[in-house]
């Protein structure tokens, strides 16, 4: 039986590997997800066959079934109910649950010994317990804060206060110290302190990070949840946890690096920079913002040969993706070439805009990556910026004193004209003034993005 279980774990690991590989290509992604879920099912079923699990003096199968049903019920409900615009916070929330589960597994393994203060406990296992608890705890509260920020239940801007970095460093060092104490003497109180501190560190670590940096944070926490699972695998000496956790850890790190590169910032700068706190100084920009009515915009669009949409987080907030799709279709029927230019960090999670536009049935061929669009920008008649800000700020390319200088942007300012859809005159998430809005070729269309675009659509229909 033992052999059968272990071989099944190997099969499950192989299915995860295949699954992740297939997730990397558009044609096979859905099957890949299916395959990895089959791997998960196999792992769960054979674990139930483990003699120790059903030896009767612990949780009965009945209770285990209850646990599975409760969890599955909540999971199905959340997955079915969520709106596509709410995807980032849901992923963050799931992620946090995974982290907390790993923490509890580490803790339970400790608790099962009962009399842990004997020195019988192997040092390695104790270290693994500390690690699983530490990473799991940070993942849990960190993801929770990310969830609160993304869902708007908590202000999205960075929360910074004097001495914050020193405090975080102090908590971190204390974590290590108590972790070592626990490993050495195996006493329960030390583990409880580690649990408390790691939960605290998750909160402290994420509050100074602003909403626009969330793509990085989510990927990073995703990686953490994998590492936590891997650590839990070392606690219970289980291969499949180690392999699967590790794969997730690695993929999360890669995504994190991609996101950081797309903003031309280092991970350290994102995590500790306090970017996007409201303390930015006001800048002087020449020129003025010129407003345009929906009606006038319509006349320009009617004559346009080539139009590019540049969506940002504002499109998600306004739920404007379906309206955008409708307008794009009308423009195409009008003989205009339409593209959607997607910046890698537009929105609040990696690939956020792709998901929204896919939901609205925007054809795949119309989605363009930044570099492809920039190459043809000068031939574009109208670039319509929908609730995007920093990713189209020309200061990143031109103003060396700008905090975002060097960040790759979509060069909409090179288009013949730019329509910027925006709610008001405020600055973007980074607190920077966007010089794009003051350019000769830029016109501001104020108001809710969805209403504006719906307005344009009805103009075309009349």
């Amino acid at each position, binding site marked *: 039986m033992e052999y059968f279980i272990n071989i099944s774990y190997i099969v499950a690991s192989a299915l995860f*590997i295949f699954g*992740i590989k297939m*997730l*990397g290509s*558009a044609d096979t*992604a859905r099957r890949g*997800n299916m395959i*990895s879920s089959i791997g998960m099912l196999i*792992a*769960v079923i054979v674990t139930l066959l*483990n003699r*120790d*699990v059903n030896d009767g003096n*612990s*949780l009965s199968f009945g*209770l285990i079934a209850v646990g599975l049903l*409760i*969890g599955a019920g909540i*999971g199905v409900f*959340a*997955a079915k109910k969520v709106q596509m615009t709410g995807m980032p916070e*849901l992923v963050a929330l*799931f*992620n946090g649950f*995974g982290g*907390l*589960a*790993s923490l509890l*597994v580490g803790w*339970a393994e400790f*608790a*099962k010994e009962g009399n842990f203060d004997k020195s019988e406990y192997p040092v390695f296992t104790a270290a693994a317990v500390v690690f699983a608890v530490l990473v799991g705890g940070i993942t849990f509260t960190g993801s929770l804060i990310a969830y609160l920020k993304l869902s708007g239940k908590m202000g999205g801007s960075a929360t910074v206060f004097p001495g914050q970095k020193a405090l975080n460093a102090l908590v971190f060092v204390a974590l290590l110290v108590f972790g070592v104490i626990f490993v050495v003497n195996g006493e329960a109180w030390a583990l409880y302190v580690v649990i408390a501190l790691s939960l605290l560190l998750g909160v402290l670590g994420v509050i100074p990070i602003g909403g626009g940096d969330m793509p990085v944070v989510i990927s990073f926490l*995703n990686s953490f*949840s994998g590492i*936590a*699972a891997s650590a*839990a695998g070392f606690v219970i*000496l*289980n291969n499949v*946890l*180690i392999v*699967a956790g*590790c*794969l*997730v*850890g*690695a*993929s*999360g*790190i*890669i*995504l994190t690096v*991609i996101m950081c590169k797309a903003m031309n910032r280092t991970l350290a700068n994102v995590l500790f920079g306090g970017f996007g706190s409201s303390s930015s100084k006001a800048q002087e920009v020449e020129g003025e913002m010129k407003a345009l009515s929906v009606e006038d915009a319509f006349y320009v669009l009617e004559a346009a040969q080539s139009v590019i949409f540049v969506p940002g987080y504002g499109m998600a907030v306004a739920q404007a993706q379906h309206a955008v799709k409708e307008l794009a279709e009308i423009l195409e029927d009008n003989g205009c070439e339409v593209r959607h230019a*997607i910046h890698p960090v537009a929105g609040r999670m*990696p*690939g956020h805009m*792709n998901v929204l536009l*896919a939901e609205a049935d925007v054809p*795949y061929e119309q*989605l363009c990556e930044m570099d492809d669009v920039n190459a043809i920008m000068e031939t574009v008649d109208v670039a319509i910026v929908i609730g995007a800000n920093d990713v189209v700020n020309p200061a990143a390319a031109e103003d060396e004193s700008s905090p975002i200088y060097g960040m790759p942007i979509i060069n909409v300012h090179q288009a013949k004209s730019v329509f910027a859809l925006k709610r008001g005159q405020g600055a973007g998430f980074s607190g920077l003034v966007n010089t794009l809005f003051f350019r000769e070729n830029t016109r501001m269309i104020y108001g809710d993005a969805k209403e504006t675009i719906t307005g344009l659509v009805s103009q075309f229909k009349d």
Partner: protein
Amino acid sequence: MELILLVFVFVMAVFLGFELIQKVPSQLHTPLMSGSNAISGITIVGALLAAGVVEGSLGKWLGFAALILATINVVGGYMVTDRMLGMFKKKGK
């Protein structure tokens, strides 16, 4: 000895993970993230073992809580990823 073997597995898995995901097109970043997030719910196996093997009542209930949380992570993660990929699919042709 078993420990060294596990560490070996760990290191290999790190390299494998990096190799697998090097070049993912950006439109798949979200599904990749939520799909791998579901895989991180593998800790459900740990939860089952903890809940099932443990004798003391504290450990048992910790395992039970871990089981529920990990199940939410796994089931929700896979389903939401599938839903997303379903939307990608239909306009593929």
